[in-house]
């Protein structure tokens, strides 16, 4: 009888799982624990941007009053974003997002500095938007050194010092990692770059991707000593589609988008005024509420981790548990695979993410988790939980319960698990 059962049929096995799902269907709620992927728009941000989608619709490059109204709004937002990272307003270039900011930084510097060298240093755990550009320029003949991160997920300054060559023109190391949240020694790198310059390495530039860190770590580009720093609006409760690149005064880079005079000739294209206004407002709020948000997410994250540790065996926390962003937890669950766990949680209303993907029969385990030295099973079983300013204790309670159910269900199915059942 080769007939699949209909969904309403009773399962022949796993009644405990079935009971759990029946229970969850009664009390289902939505819990968003993927704030490192994106954040909801803050109502105050939405309120600030709405007029620029309606009556204040001018092009910021226009000379008339409609244009000047938009220009003033963009200028204000530029000051707000600059203030978030301790920059001057004219050091901020608005882009379409963090990816474009990273592309502009890396390609822009490489094009300008190639006469002085073709060596770039980066880390093994960069976001794909940095990793991708670096991979591309490598194909074009650039030499790349990718710094290891060891089991704590943090690059070592000695490795960087050893990697710097006379022909190194760019160091690009992220401020904090997007999957495991580990903070990188950016201030030390900045100090090393300054020291190198003082010793005659004039063309060495330092870029850091601060997309995950902004609004979560206090950032001051003067103290960090970076030349370029990437930001994204939608990670700090503003809409998708806008980012920024801090370019230190005096740093030259080749524009990657030409055909207009916007952004002081560094990024052509009509400004997305409403989105930029939203970004500015979100940046101001992020700076003002930084401690409050961090205290809140850290408390929830720590409570979540304590509960998970107490209730679920065979787990491994990924990345240094001290030097990391306060809102993020990355955990590998042994014997099971992350995508299955993600879907089980999703079916219970809990949104999380995994860095691994299985597609067309090939597995791409998270390069970040692999860089920690984890085996393939742990890399496949890694899940990122990222809390937000509006997450609640009830969210934590619900997520832990849902996670417990999902992990138990999947481990009962897993041939790798010590819990494999014998049934007749």
């Amino acid at each position, binding site marked *: *009888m*080769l*007939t*699949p*059962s*209909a*969904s309403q049929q009773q*399962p*022949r*096995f*796993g009644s405990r*799982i*079935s009971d759990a*799902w029946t229970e969850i269907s009664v009390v289902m709620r939505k819990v968003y624990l993927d704030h490192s992927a994106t954040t909801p728009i803050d109502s105050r941000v939405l309120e600030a941007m709405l007029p620029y989608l309606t009556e204040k619709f001018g092009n910021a490059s226009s000379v008339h009053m409609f244009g000047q109204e938009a220009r003033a709004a963009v200028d204000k937002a530029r000051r707000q974003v600059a203030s978030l990272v301790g920059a001057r307003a004219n050091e901020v270039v608005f882009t379409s997002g963090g990816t474009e900011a990273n592309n502009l930084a890396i390609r822009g510097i490489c094009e300008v500095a190639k006469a002085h060298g073709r060596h770039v240093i980066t880390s093994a755990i960069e976001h794909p938007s940095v990793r991708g550009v670096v991979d591309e320029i490598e194909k074009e003949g650039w030499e790349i050194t990718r710094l290891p991160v060891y089991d704590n997920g943090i690059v070592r300054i000695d490795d960087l010092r050893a990697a710097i060559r006379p022909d190194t023109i760019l160091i690009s190391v992220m401020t904090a990692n997007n999957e495991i949240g580990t903070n990188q020694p950016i201030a030390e790198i900045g100090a090393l770059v300054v020291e190198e310059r003082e010793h005659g390495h004039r063309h060495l530039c330092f870029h850091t991707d601060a997309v995950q860190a902004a609004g979560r770590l206090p950032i001051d580009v003067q103290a960090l000593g970076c030349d370029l720093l990437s930001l994204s609006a939608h990670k700090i409760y503003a809409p998708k589609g806008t980012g920024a690149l801090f370019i230190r005064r005096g740093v030259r880079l080749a524009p990657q988008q030409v055909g207009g005079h916007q952004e002081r000739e560094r990024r052509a294209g009509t400004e997305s005024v409403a989105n930029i206004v939203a970004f500015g407002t979100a940046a101001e709020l992020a700076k003002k509420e930084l401690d409050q948000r961090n205290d809140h997410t850290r408390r929830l994250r720590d409570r979540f981790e304590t509960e998970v540790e107490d209730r679920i065996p065979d787990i491994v926390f990924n990345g240094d548990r001290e030097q990391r962003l306060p809102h993020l937890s990355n955990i590998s669950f042994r*014997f*099971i*695979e992350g*995508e*299955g766990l*993600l*879907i*089980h949680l*999703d*079916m219970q209303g809990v949104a999380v993410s995994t860095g691994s*993907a*299985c*597609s*067309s*029969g*090939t*597995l791409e385990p998270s390069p970040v988790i692999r860089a920690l030295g984890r085996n*393939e099973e742990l890399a*496949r079983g890694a899940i990122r939980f990222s809390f937000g300013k509006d997450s609640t204790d009830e969210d934590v309670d619900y997520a832990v319960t849902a996670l417990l159910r999902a992990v138990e*269900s*999947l481990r*009962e*199915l*897993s*041939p*790798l698990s010590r819990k*494999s*059942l*014998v*049934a*007749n």
Partner: protein
Amino acid sequence: MTLSYSDIFSDHLANPRNAGELADADVVAEETNPVCGDRLRLSLRIRDGRIDAARFLAYGCPPTLACGSAIAEMIQGTTIHEATKLTKNEIVAAVGGLPSRKQHAASLAIETLRAAIIKHASEDGE
């Protein structure tokens, strides 16, 4: 989420059919996709040329779990001869369809079933 799942697919995940292992299995086969590492184990109890009971265990992406559940359910009660005719497309249909990049999950299910049948035939013939 990388897939949009059908109701039947989600139901296989939430309520896996015939999960576990048989204590009195006549044959157990486990196959691994060498590239992605997904695994499927089938244990079968066979009586008079018929699959009297089938159980599965699976490790891998959700389609692998769903296909394991589907195949274990579909083959239980069939003759060995009927089971050998089962195709990848029938498994795909049984879970409500799979995108092309996830069809390898159904292939793994069929390969594991065939491995079990061949193993049983060779052990039976010894």
